[in-house]
């Protein structure tokens, strides 16, 4: 069983804690976020605002925040100082500031003072505008929210009056009607519902749309609620961000206390549903509400590329220093040679000092070399990249209407570097849409072949779905079902059933995603079980006898209890569109008929023995006729039909044969399978259960309830203290609900304590993980016969559980226990004590529950199918081809995990399976060593023939190969004794050599040992040699430990993907955390960097967007640095001709704006739009992903290549004009003009050469860039008479551009500068395109399984 399944649901459970008891918190917290904080001494007291204690109210509540929210960072007045203050926390801005200040020192002044301020001012302005816009958006939103109105009680008016949200205070009474949003966290004090219930929808908070039940504070519902007389004093925790916990008590002046729980709290921003009016008292307001405290800002992570970039920037700094030093020394030497020249200005300074000054001047002049604006550009580029990811229609899920959410804004390029993917199983790889598949009761397995076939048909119909319209689907389905069943092979349940056709299914459920789909709702009952059950209400003895020869009355009691457990031991919310939720339909119990069954039950249960088929109750016929006369034909007909059907078909094979032979029988088959449908065809018989819907937090709960409904044990309604269940006999009984002991991850089970509707005894029904429950069940001490029976049941059930797990089903055990009244009384005391305590209630409740759940009687087990999401295997295959290692970290059983791994093609039949189950550290060490040896000696290419020599003597053993198609007789892949048989794949060398690898399967215990420091190394070494690793039965903590280990020790980029609360820690640890917004709320999404809705989206996200983002950003950064180095070097070369004096041949404005404006947009466009490889190629050839990623030295090698190229280009760009204008009457600026223009052309054309795609946007940007430059310099040369002293740009450009030499120089310079790169690229592409060609022509290289049928090792 999955131990962690419960963990995952814990939070959702707590959400809707629809029980009067509190809840348990695990001693070891799942994550720090939810660690129970001891709140002793940290309490808040809340009094009614208009209540009797006015004075006290004001003194206490002063410190409490009002309900107005302000999420803005700045106000109008503080914006400029605060924003500036915040901005100067960035190193980049400080650098600019430093430069600007440096320019104020007269001796080193390079440009006019205002010019060096430009970059700083520009950057500050851009960011300030961005901040201001964001803040304004927040402000508008705040304002809107603050001015929402709600009804608040006012003493003067003695009524509830409209009031803005912002004017709501702690202690106010607020009245809300249906569909209103809750303005603040408040305690529910009154509800129009007679039982004091109210439902809230938390979609705004966590995205879950199912309703959560809330209840009025106990004892309050009894009295009439009058706000004036509310004199209770509320003590509760201080505000915290734990959505799932609320503790406190209410005390009235007489000292009586009432406990307060999460189920009494209405959370801000949830919506009231299904309740006409509710009144609550505000306990937390505004920023102190749980909803607000849970809002944290976007995540900030540093991407790997940015870290690499920092080293490159350091190189740039070094380069700058070298250049400045060169200039300083050069200037010193130059000055030394001169003797009082006439061009020397100013007083005599020593060459050394002058050199020192020049050093700083040069830093100002060459400041562009430090790509500070690069950081701003990177941010902008990432925003652009995220914009495109966000808008990708392929990452949009039609059914949930959700796009991908990019929550971390700055690690887009890390998506292109992932080497390890750690995936959760349930809900991530699988749908997390549970379908009841089969069950075992009383040690007898009910394989539900028809149900299985139905699931298969769903898969098979996937292809036809395109043609079939949806409306006639159900009828055609029924027909095809009956036809298909004829040819169906019972012996194998193919793993096809594991792969989902969610498309079709989701179309059915798209209207309400949380509602179980039709697939989950329809369960085809197993006819044998139906037969047995029908005996309960069989009209006469003959049928019962003929049908239920093998069944004993004890078995019948077991079956009844089994389904009763399925129906009531859960926390589902029953809703029906037809009738109001909160009105419990009056039970119409056919008392007399039930009494008979009651008698029967009492007899079975009290005596429990002898288990002999002795007693057919004599009154069956009368019971049946009673039902008949009450008009319950529908529900009666079915069992009867079923019984007949089973009469004809004693076993499934016969049944299908019969279907062919017997034409009239065929008409009955559908009816048998769809009893409800059949029944509803009966005119007049309106079946209420057709309209009943169940909303459960965990999908498998709903699946079980629907399963029990299929057997006509229908949960019809529930309230806080009772459940209404319709029995197969047609009667409806009230089941008094005494206690609910909800799930928690430690107990891994859930129990309900009820008074049995028939026997009146106190009964505990428990369902839970088999690993736990099997130990808690005991054979009742007593007669030998009973012992035998029970141990037989246990044995059989265990066998069935194992086989379920191998099939990939999720297993649950069902057990029960009858309590004596005295026993119950004793337990009740401890329980009440635990409930009423405040301090360590969780612990006490846990203990109390554990005390109750002992000596249970095992009833049976269920197997629930959780199908794979669509395209999971394709995605995993693509990831593996991209050389991304996929690990599955799951809490599931080993067998289940392996099966899922087969189904999603993570495992191939030809793979070597290394299973590690160790009891202690020593054996673990030995085993890991042994595996390591084996793996390193293992030659993958020989996998076909050579099998690993012998099985390991240790507990774990490698089992090579697994049965391929159609050989279900072969042993299970991992259980049992070490099998050393050769792989059962056919001829060893069929097709391409399947690069079979080793797959390590490790369980939670062994993982604990392997994660210890001494074994870490070996474990990692082993895992490096393995194609995949499957960690089963791992805890959330282990998951995060594994991720951390791999991330830190192997220094690789890790990605964790999961959907539930138990994946949160793993997602947070990984470099890239991906949350799947699925059935399990938003926990994972909230902590993730990227949130997707299907696993398959990972493929495009990584292979396409990751690849693009990485190459784009890497190329953009390289280009940016190239651009700066290239341009700055022009200025540097000039120093050799101006005595290293720090002069420039350009107007200072042009110089500064050249980088800031004229050439700033093209790199951005390059970084946002470039596509080095088209989508379809990236999707079809995941190997490209590998190529990008493995080129680690790519960045540093390319960095130096680019620097070199920049040096070359700047040399060309400077010296061609130099030689062309040498010894002429060229002026300073006239000389700079062709250099600048050439530099612009070179820089732009360099990008054209480097770009992989050029669209009209590129063209436009290039034109604008060049245009803006020429417009600027021309305007300057026409209008700038004295505007830019001391440079003298007037007439320079107009003069230059009127001369042909200018153009000749520009053309020559540009062409010469770009020649080498053009040549290099041409040569490179001519050679490397061959690589791409290889991929495009050879079949998939690695990772994928050879094309066997997707059916894995299926055992039934």
């Amino acid at each position, binding site marked *: 069983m999955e131990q962690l399944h419960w963990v995952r649901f814990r939070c959702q459970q707590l959400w809707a804690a629809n029980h009067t008891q509190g809840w348990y918190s695990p001693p070891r917290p799942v994550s720090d976020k939810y660690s129970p904080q001891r709140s002793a001494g940290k309490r808040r007291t809340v009094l009614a605002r208009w209540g009797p204690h006015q004075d006290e109210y004001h003194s206490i509540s002063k410190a409490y925040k009002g309900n107005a929210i302000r*999420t803005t960072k700045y106000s109008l007045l503080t914006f400029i100082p605060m924003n500036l203050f915040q901005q100067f926390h960035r190193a980049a801005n400080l650098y600019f500031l430093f430069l600007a200040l440096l320019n104020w020192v007269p001796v080193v002044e390079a440009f006019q003072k205002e010019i060096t301020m430009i970059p700083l001012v520009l950057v500050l302005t851009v960011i300030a505008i961005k901040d201001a816009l*964001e803040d304004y958006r927040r402000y508008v*939103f705040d304002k809107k929210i603050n001015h*929402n109105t709600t009804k608040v009680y006012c003493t003067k008016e003695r009524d509830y009056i409209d009031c803005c949200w912002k004017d709501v205070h702690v202690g106010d009474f607020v009245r809300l009607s249906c*569909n*209103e949003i809750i303005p603040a966290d408040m305690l529910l004090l009154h509800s129009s519902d007679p039982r004091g219930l109210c439902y809230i929808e938390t979609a705004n*908070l966590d995205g879950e749309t199912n309703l959560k039940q809330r209840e009025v504070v106990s004892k309050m519902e009894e009295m009439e609620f009058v706000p004036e007389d509310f004199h209770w004093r509320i003590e509760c925790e201080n505000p915290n961000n734990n959505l799932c916990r609320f503790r406190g008590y209410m005390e009235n002046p007489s000292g009586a206390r009432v406990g307060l729980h999460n189920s009494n709290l209405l959370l*801000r*921003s949830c919506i009231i549903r299904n309740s006409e009016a509710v009144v609550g008292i505000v306990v937390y307001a505004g920023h102190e509400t749980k909803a*607000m405290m849970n809002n944290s800002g976007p995540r900030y992570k540093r991407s790997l590329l940015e870290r690499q970039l920092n080293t490159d920037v350091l190189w740039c700094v070094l380069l700058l220093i070298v250049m400045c030093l060169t200039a300083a020394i050069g200037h010193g030497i130059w000055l030394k040679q*001169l*003797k009082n020249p006439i*061009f020397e*200005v*100013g007083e005599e300074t020593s060459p050394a000092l002058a050199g020192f000054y020049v050093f700083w001047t040069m830093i100002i002049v060459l400041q562009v070399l430090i790509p500070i604006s690069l950081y701003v550009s990177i941010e902008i580029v990432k925003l652009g990249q995220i914009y*495109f990811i966000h808008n990708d*229609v392929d990452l*949009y899920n039609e059914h949930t*209407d*959700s*796009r991908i*959410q*990019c929550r971390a804004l700055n690690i887009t390029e890390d998506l292109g570097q992932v080497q390890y993917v750690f995936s959760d199983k349930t809900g991530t790889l699988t749908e997390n849409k549970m379908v009841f598949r089969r069950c075992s009761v009383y040690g007898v397995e009910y394989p539900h072949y028809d149900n299985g076939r139905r699931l298969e048909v769903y898969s098979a119909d996937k292809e036809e779905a395109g043609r079939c319209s949806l409306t006639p689907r159900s009828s055609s389905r029924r027909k095809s079902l009956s036809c298909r069943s004829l040819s169906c092979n019972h012996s194998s349940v193919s793993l096809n059933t594991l792969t989902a056709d969610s498309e079709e299914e989701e179309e059915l459920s798209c209207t309400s995603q949380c509602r179980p789909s039709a697939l989950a709702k329809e369960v085809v009952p197993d006819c044998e079980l139906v037969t047995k059950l029908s005996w309960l209400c069989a009209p006469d003895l003959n049928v019962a006898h003929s049908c239920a020869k093998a069944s004993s009355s004890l078995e019948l009691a077991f079956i009844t209890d089994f389904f009763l457990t399925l129906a009531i031991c859960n926390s589902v919310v029953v809703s029906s569109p037809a009738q109001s939720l909160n009105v419990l339909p009056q039970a119409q119990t056919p008392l007399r008929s039930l009494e008979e069954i009651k008698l029967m039950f009492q007899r079975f249960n009290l005596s429990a023995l002898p288990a002999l088929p002795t007693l057919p109750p004599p009154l069956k016929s009368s019971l049946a006729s009673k039902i008949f006369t009450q008009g319950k034909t529908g529900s009666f007909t079915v069992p009867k039909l079923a019984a007949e059907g089973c009469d004809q078909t004693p076993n499934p094979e016969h049944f299908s044969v019969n279907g062919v032979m017997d034409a009239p029988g065929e008409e009955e088959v559908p009816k048998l399978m769809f009893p409800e449908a059949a029944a509803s065809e009966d005119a007049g018989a309106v079946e209420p259960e057709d309209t009943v819907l169940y909303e459960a937090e965990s999908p498998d709960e709903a699946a079980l309830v629907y399963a029990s409904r299929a057997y006509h044990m229908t949960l019809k309604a529930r309230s806080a203290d009772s459940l209404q269940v319709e029995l197969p006999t047609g009667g409806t009984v009230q089941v008094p609900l005494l206690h609910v002991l909800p799930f928690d991850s430690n107990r891994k089970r859930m129990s309900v304590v009820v008074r049995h509707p028939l026997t009146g005894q106190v009964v505990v029904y428990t369902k839970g993980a088999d690993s736990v429950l099997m130990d808690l069940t005991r054979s009742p001490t007593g007669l030998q016969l009973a012992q035998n029976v029970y141990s037989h049941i246990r044995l059989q059930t265990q066998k069935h559980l194992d086989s379920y797990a191998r099939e990939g089903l999720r297993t649950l055990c069902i057990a029960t226990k009858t309590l004596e009244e005295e026993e119950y009384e004793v337990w009740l005391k401890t329980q009440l004590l635990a409930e009423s305590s405040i301090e360590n209630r969780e612990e006490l409740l846990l203990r109390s529950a554990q005390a109750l759940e002992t000596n249970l009687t095992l009833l049976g087990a269920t197997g629930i199918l959780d199908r794979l999401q669509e395209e999971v295997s394709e995605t995993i295959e693509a990831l593996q081809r991209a050389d991304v290692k996929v690990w599955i970290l799951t809490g599931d059983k080993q067998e289940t995990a392996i099966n899922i791994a087969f189904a999603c093609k993570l495992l191939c039949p030809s793979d070597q399976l290394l299973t590690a189950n160790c009891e202690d550290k020593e054996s673990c060490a030995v085993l890991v060593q042994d595996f390591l040896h084996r793996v390193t000696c293992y030659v993958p290419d020989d996998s076909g023939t050579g099998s690993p020599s012998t099985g390991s003597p240790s507990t774990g053993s490698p089992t090579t190969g697994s049965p391929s198609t159609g050989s279900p007789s072969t042993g299970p892949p991992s259980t049992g004794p070490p099998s050393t048989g050769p792989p059962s794949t056919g001829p060893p060398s069929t097709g391409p050599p399947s690069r079979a690898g080793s797959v390590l399967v490790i369980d939670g215990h062994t993982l604990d040992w392997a994660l210890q420091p001494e074994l870490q190394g070996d474990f990692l070494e082993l895992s490096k040699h393995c194609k995949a690793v499957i960690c089963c039965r791992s805890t959330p903590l282990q998951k995060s430990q594994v991720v951390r280990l791999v991330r830190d020790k192997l220094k690789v980029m890790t990605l964790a993907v999961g959907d539930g609360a138990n994946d949160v820690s793993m997602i947070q640890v990984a470099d890239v955390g991906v949350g799947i917004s699925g059935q399990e709320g938003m926990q994972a999404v909230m902590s993730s960097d990227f949130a997707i809705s299907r696993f398959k989206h990972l493929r495009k996200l990584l292979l396409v967007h990751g690849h693009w983002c990485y190459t784009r950003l890497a190329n953009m950064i390289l280009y940016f640095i190239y651009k700066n180095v290239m341009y700055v070097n022009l200025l540097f070369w000039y120093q050799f*001709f*101006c005595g290293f*004096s*720090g*002069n420039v041949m350009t107007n200072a404005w042009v110089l500064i704006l050249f980088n800031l404006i004229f050439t700033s947009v093209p790199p951005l466009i390059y970084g946002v739009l470039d596509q080095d490889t*088209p989508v379809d190629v990236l999707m079809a050839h995941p190997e490209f992903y590998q190529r990008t990623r493995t080129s680690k030295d790519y960045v540093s090698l390319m960095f130096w290549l680019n620097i070199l190229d920049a040096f070359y280009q700047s040399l060309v760009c400077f010296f061609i004009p130099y*030689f*062309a204008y040498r010894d*002429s*009457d*060229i*002026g*300073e600026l*006239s*000389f*700079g003009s062709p250099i600048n223009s050439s530099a612009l052309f070179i820089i732009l054309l360099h990008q054209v*050469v480097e770009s992989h*795609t*050029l669209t*009209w946007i590129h063209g436009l940007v290039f034109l604008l860039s060049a245009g803006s430059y020429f417009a600027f310099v021309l305007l300057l040369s026409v209008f700038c*008479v*004295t505007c830019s002293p*001391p440079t*003298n740009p*007037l*007439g320079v450009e107009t003069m230059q551009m009127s001369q042909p030499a200018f153009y000749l*120089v520009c053309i020559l310079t540009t062409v010469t500068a770009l*020649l080498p790169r*053009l*040549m290099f*690229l041409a*040569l490179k592409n*001519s050679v490397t*395109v061959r690589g*791409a*060609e290889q991929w*495009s022509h050879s079949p998939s290289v690695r990772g994928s399984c050879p094309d066997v049928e997707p059916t894995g090792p299926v055992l039934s």
Partner: protein
Amino acid sequence: MASGYNAKEEDGHIGVVGLGGASLRGRKPENTAFKQQRLPAWQPILTAGSVLPAFFIIGLIFIPIGIGLYVTSNNIREFEIDYTGVEVSSPCYNCAQNFSWHSTTPCTCSIQFYLHQAYESNVFMYYGLSNFYQNHRRYVKSRDDSQLNGDISSLTKPSKECEPYANHDHKPIAPCGAIANSMFNDTLELFYIDPNGTRVPVALSSTGIAWWTDKHVKFRNPGGSTNLTAAFQGTVKPVNWRHPVYELDTDPENNGFINEDFIVWMRTAALPTFRKLYRVIQKKNNMAPTLPRGNYSLQVQYNFPVRSFEGRKRVILSTISWMGGKNPFLGIAYVTVGSVCFFLGVVLLFIHHKYGNRTNNADITN
């Protein structure tokens, strides 16, 4: 009521800023070419095959251009005389030795030279200086454009940039600054020596040597050009100058700040070795060459010191073409680059021939 209200957006933290504002339903991204990154794009894949033609074309275009430029440059007549007077044999040796900015008796020297070819078109007479760092940062800055533009206030109160050549004896210097102060002040005269031995002065035009924009827009005399002496009242001449600025020329259109020699000097040279236009010898109307071949004499009034920085002074006589003065570099460079391109084109052709068939069918990225 407020059905669109969404706590996730409550404080704008969640989702992409500015992008998360879509309505709750119908969040399907627009399927436009831009948003789906499917804009029609040109994908330049630079392989040997595709670059090949470009190389040949560049080669084919550059080589003729280069040859043309080279020929043009070769057709330019240019003659250069160094008159620094470093060598003892030089006629100006004496003048160079005893130099003073303020010597009242001008030292004159005369250099004889022979032109082997006649100069047909307009001849430009340059003076050339070597190792003179007119592009020194502090030198370049040392000027006041407002003053030169005729601004009265700047005339009396020169900009700080001019320091230490802004004031002299507590009077503002006009024109201020180091550039003006170090203005080239040699006087050059050219004589054609007839075959019969008579010295015929060659007419040197001193106007039209500065840029039109400088002469008419940038440089202006204060208070118009009516009475320059009055206009410059209260200012002193630059330290090194022998005459005040209003005595640079007798022609009122070429005096004061708008003196063209001054303007030419004020446009600082880009490189330490430079030439500046001194005079233009206009072609006469008749068919006779501007400068016939024969003996010439250059008479230099030696004022400008270059020895302190080991500079050189030259006089250059040159005709010009459409592409400027004589400079074979561009032509040679064009021919070289063109040839290199052509050669690379051949290399690429070879590579294309070798890998061509592969690159063709591997064009999967298209």
